[in-house]
Each structure stands twice: as C-alpha cells, then as structure tokens.
C-alpha cells in the first residue's frame, strides 16, 4: 500500500498494524517538549502518574524544557512558574533543560541543537511544534495533559490525519519568502482549511527553499488548522543536519501513489509579499495593494519562532543599513536564540539595528502573545513577523496586528506605514 511520509512515521511508532487515515493510534514518542506556560500542568500530571507506580521507567533525555514565553521572568508569577521547571529539571536530571542565557525560543532552538531529526515522532505542548515538519519529522502540538502522559509513559494518542498536498511551482518574486507562501496559502484555504489534516509541501519552489524558510512555512500550518506540516527531507535538509551535528536518522518519503484528499497547485509567479490584516491570518492582501493604503504603524516586531532566525535578521539588516526608524515608530528586534544573537553580533547586524534606532531584545516569545517586551496601547497598530494577529493578542483589545515577512516589517519601520523595500530603493 502506498503511504504518505506522515502515515509511515506514525505506523513506525505504533504497535497496531495497517492503520490508515482516520484510525486512532497509541504512538511511542521520540521526544517531547514543554515551556514555562505549559510545563507546570504537565509536571503535575507526570508526578500524579508516577505516584501510581514508581516502577515506570522514565527517560529524562526524551524531554526538553524551554522557559521562553515569559522569560527573562516578566513578573513574580512567571518567575514562580520558571522556578518549578528548574527544580523539576534538577530533580530528574533533565539534560535538555535550557536555562535563560543558554537557550532561546523553543522552535528556533530545538532544530539548532540537533534535538529533532527526520522520521522522528515529536510532540510539544506548544501549538507551533508543527515547525519541525520542515525536517521531515512528524511533529505536532498538544496540551499539557497529553504532554504529562507522554513524559511519564512515553506515549500519546493520535488520530492518523488525512493529507493535503500543496505543490508550489514557478519563480519567486523579489522579497517573497516562505512567510509569504504560507500566508498566501492560509488566505487561499482559510484558517480552518486544513483542520485535523497534514499539510505536505512539495514542488520545485520548496526543493529550492532554505531551511529557514521551510521552518517558517511549517510553523504556520497550525494557523490553517493543520495537525502537522511536512516537507520531504532532501539535500538541503541533510546539509542542515550536518551543520548541527546530527548524523543518525531515518529518511522517510511519501510513496508514489500515496493518497491525498486534495492537491492544491500554487503557481508563485504572481505572488507578492503578503500582509495579513487584523484579526485573522487569512485576511491577506498583496503588498502593492497595501502600500497604496498608507497604513500608519506604531510598532514593528521582528523575531519569534516564525521569523527569528539568522537569515531573517540578515534581510532586516540589509534594509535598515544606513536608514533610520521613522520618528513616531518603535522597532523591536528579537533574535530567536542565543546562538543566533551571537552570530548577529559577529556579522555586525546588531550594530546596524541600533544605529537605525531599533531596540534589540534578548530571545523571548514576549510580545508575540502579549506577554511583555512591547505591549500595545489602546488603538495602536503593529506590524509583526509573528504568526497570529488575533484581536488583543499583543495588548489592548482595540490594538491591531498586521502580519508580514521581515523585509516588509523592516521597510515599514523606516517609513512608518506599511510598505515594501522595493519602494525604499526607488
């Protein structure tokens, strides 16, 4: 029987035989992840199960803990949550606990640390865990109870998803990135267009896309309701894995003739950089249309698990170099991890950002979910390279968020209204 990558990986991780899309499976989890918001409840569940039987073997190397959402601790309550993680990590000798200053935003950090590989089954108590599909792993977001059970027993229940295939062809226009492709796709299928389903990205555009852009695309599958995203591992994946020092893994590919419930053809020749208007990632418009509207913006956020990687910061530096942030605008740049931050310093990017009048924050999810480090006041507008522009997400309920790629956000920071770098250089 012909199978998709996703079906194969799930089958490789469960005892039940011949399962297909729609069936429920109890799967073995290779690695699991929690952060400062989701770990406290997961730890409670874990301890509760262990009280039942302390003979259950626990593999501390399977768990990754990343205090990243409200860190460095934004207040006493978040400090207490992080303390709980730290004490748990000590108690159970969790090797992959990433202390503030030695880690960063989970979905930038984990691939960089070589903690996820092709063919693996990964669950994370964070919705953007779908990011690692970019490496050809089955990776999906779950809640704290799921995670606590996986921590204690190494298993998770799943419904095997049906797969949607997205075939990207043509050529990319200037300033068009993975972010634009995924925003365009969400605009096309809607925020529930892939609910319960796998989004498999294929085609010549994907084959030539950098890992950084692939992570960005897979990261936002959840914004279309997707259970997971997946890209077949290829030479670009292998080069990345080699760079991060991962040498052992199992490449899994979809069979010819595998079943997809639909194939969506996307020709990229005419796709422009996209901007998602408040308050849904599906409200997308092309940049030429948006530029004409001259929408004034108070603040730009450049970073996050979607667009906080080195490649993103390099693009932003190119645009901000010898330019100044608009007088009435605040630009906040957040490198995804300490490693990315350090590389950005070595490459001189941070100096460019500061000379331009931007601020550079330590790695944190912070403003993306309205935690801190850039909360919006009543009626303010932000452009953001993050993944969600829900009502009130970044601050006051009347504040508004526009989503874009890093180049559009940087150009906007200079002009003070939403625009493209193409217009800056005219």
């Amino acid at each position, binding site marked *: 029987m012909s199978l998709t990558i996703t079906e194969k990986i799930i089958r490789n991780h469960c005892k039940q035989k011949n399962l297909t899309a729609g069936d*429920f499976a*109890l799967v073995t989890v290779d690695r699991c992840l929690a952060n400062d*918001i*989701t770990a*406290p*409840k997961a730890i*409670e*569940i874990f301890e*509760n*199960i262990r009280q*039942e*039987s302390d003979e*259950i073997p626990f593999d501390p190397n399977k768990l990754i803990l990343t205090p990243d*959402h*409200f860190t460095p601790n934004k*207040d006493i*309550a*978040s400090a*207490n*949550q992080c303390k709980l993680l730290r004490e748990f990590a000590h108690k159970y000798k969790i090797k992959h606990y990433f202390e503030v200053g030695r880690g960063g935003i989970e979905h930038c950090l984990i691939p960089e640390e070589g903690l996820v590989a092709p063919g693996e089954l990964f669950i*994370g*108590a*964070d*919705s953007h*865990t779908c990011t690692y599909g970019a490496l050809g792993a089955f990776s999906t*977001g*779950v*809640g*704290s*109870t*799921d995670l*606590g*059970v996986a921590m*204690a*027993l190494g*298993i998770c*229940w799943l419904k095997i998803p049906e797969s949607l295939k997205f075939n990207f062809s043509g050529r990319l226009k200037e300033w068009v990135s993975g972010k634009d492709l995924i925003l365009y796709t969400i605009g096309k299928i809607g*925020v*529930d267009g892939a*609910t*319960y389903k796998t989004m498999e990205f294929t085609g010549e555009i994907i084959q030539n896309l950098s890992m950084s852009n692939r992570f960005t695309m897979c990261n936002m599958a*959840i914004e279309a*309701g997707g*259970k997971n995203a997946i890209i077949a591992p290829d030479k670009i994946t292998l080069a990345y894995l080699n760079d991060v020092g991962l040498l052992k893994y199992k490449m899994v590919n979809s069979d010819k003739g595998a079943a997809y419930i639909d194939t969506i053809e996307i020709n990229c020749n005419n796709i422009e950089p996209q901007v998602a208007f408040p308050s*849904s990632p599906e409200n997308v418009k092309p940049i030429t249309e948006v530029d004409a509207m001259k929408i004034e913006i108070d603040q730009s956020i450049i970073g996050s698990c979607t667009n906080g990687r080195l490649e993103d910061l390099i693009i932003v530096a190119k645009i901000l170099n010898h330019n100044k942030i608009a007088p009435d605008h605040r630009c906040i740049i957040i490198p995804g991890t300490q490693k990315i931050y350090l590389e950005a310093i070595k490459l001189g990017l941070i100096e460019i950002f500061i000379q331009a009048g931007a601020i550079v924050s330590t790695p944190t999810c912070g403003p993306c*979910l*309205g*935690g801190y480090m850039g909360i919006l006041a009543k009626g303010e507008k932000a452009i953001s390279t993050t993944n*969600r522009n*829900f*009502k*009130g*997400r970044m601050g006051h*309920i009347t504040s508004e968020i526009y989503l874009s790629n890093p180049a559009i956000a940087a150009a906007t920071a200079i002009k003070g209204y939403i625009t493209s770098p193409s217009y800056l250089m005219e």
Partner: protein
Amino acid sequence: MKGKVLKYDQKDINTDLIIPARYLTSSDPNYLAEHCMEDFDKEFAKQIKEKAFSILVAESNFGCGSSREQAPIALKAGGIQCIIAPSFARIFFRNAINIGLPIIEMERVEKLNTDDELIIDVESGFIQNVTRHEKLNIKKFPSFLAEIIQAGGLLEYAKKVIIKK
C-alpha cells in the same frame, strides 16, 4: 446530561479570546474561570453563573490558536459541561477530551439557541431540545475517545488502562 444553552454566532473563537495569555501565569482553574472569554464577552463568567448556562454553542473552528489547556480548563471551571460547534480546532478538541469535557461536533447549530434546555445523550447519539420539542442526531464518539471521556479524562485513562497494559 441536561443543561441550558449559551450561544455565540461566531466562528473562529480563538484561545486568546477564551483565556488571554496575560492570565497564563496561573493554572488555578477558578482564577482562569473568572477571566474566561472576557475579551470577547465581558459578561460571560457572570452570565453562566447567574443564568446557569452549562452548554456552550458556537460556530465552526472553535478553540483555534494556541495549545493552552487553560482554555478548556477555564470553560469547565466556570460551569460549562459541554461545547457544541460544527468543528473544533484540533488541539482544543484533544485538550477538552483529555480533561474530560465532552465536546460535540454538529453541523446544524442553527437548531440551538440561547436559553434552550437540552438533554444530551452522547452514548446514544442524540440531543433532545426540550424547549423546541426537537430531537437532533449527533455523531457518537469513536470508542477510543468515549473510553477517555468515561474514565474522566486522559490522566485517569492512563492510570486505569495504559499502566495496566
């Protein structure tokens, strides 16, 4: 299960609306319940208490967004015993099942309105709308999910069933 409906004619009610991130520094169910839905409907917590609403009905893609389990926890702690919508975002769906909060996928939510009294029989697969004298069929839960709900959630299921295996 018996209860009274509170209905929102709104699709894509996301987890930021159900429980804003500013309250995620706590996992106390009662604290979360106090702030449940406040950015969407300020009166929510007060209404469900005063009018004894226990069944929440909404349009499609309910619970989209983040993986925060605090969302179904806040609803459940506030007094919601069942949610009915044409579709749910998948992490919200599994979180609700995992904490033992039944959620029902039903296309024709136009058949239900605020203040309707319902009798829900998930096992037999129907909803009796007592107010409108109407019986509506619903899909039964797949047996695997029904077992988790019957056990009272995934933690209890894991303790009762998985460990024993």
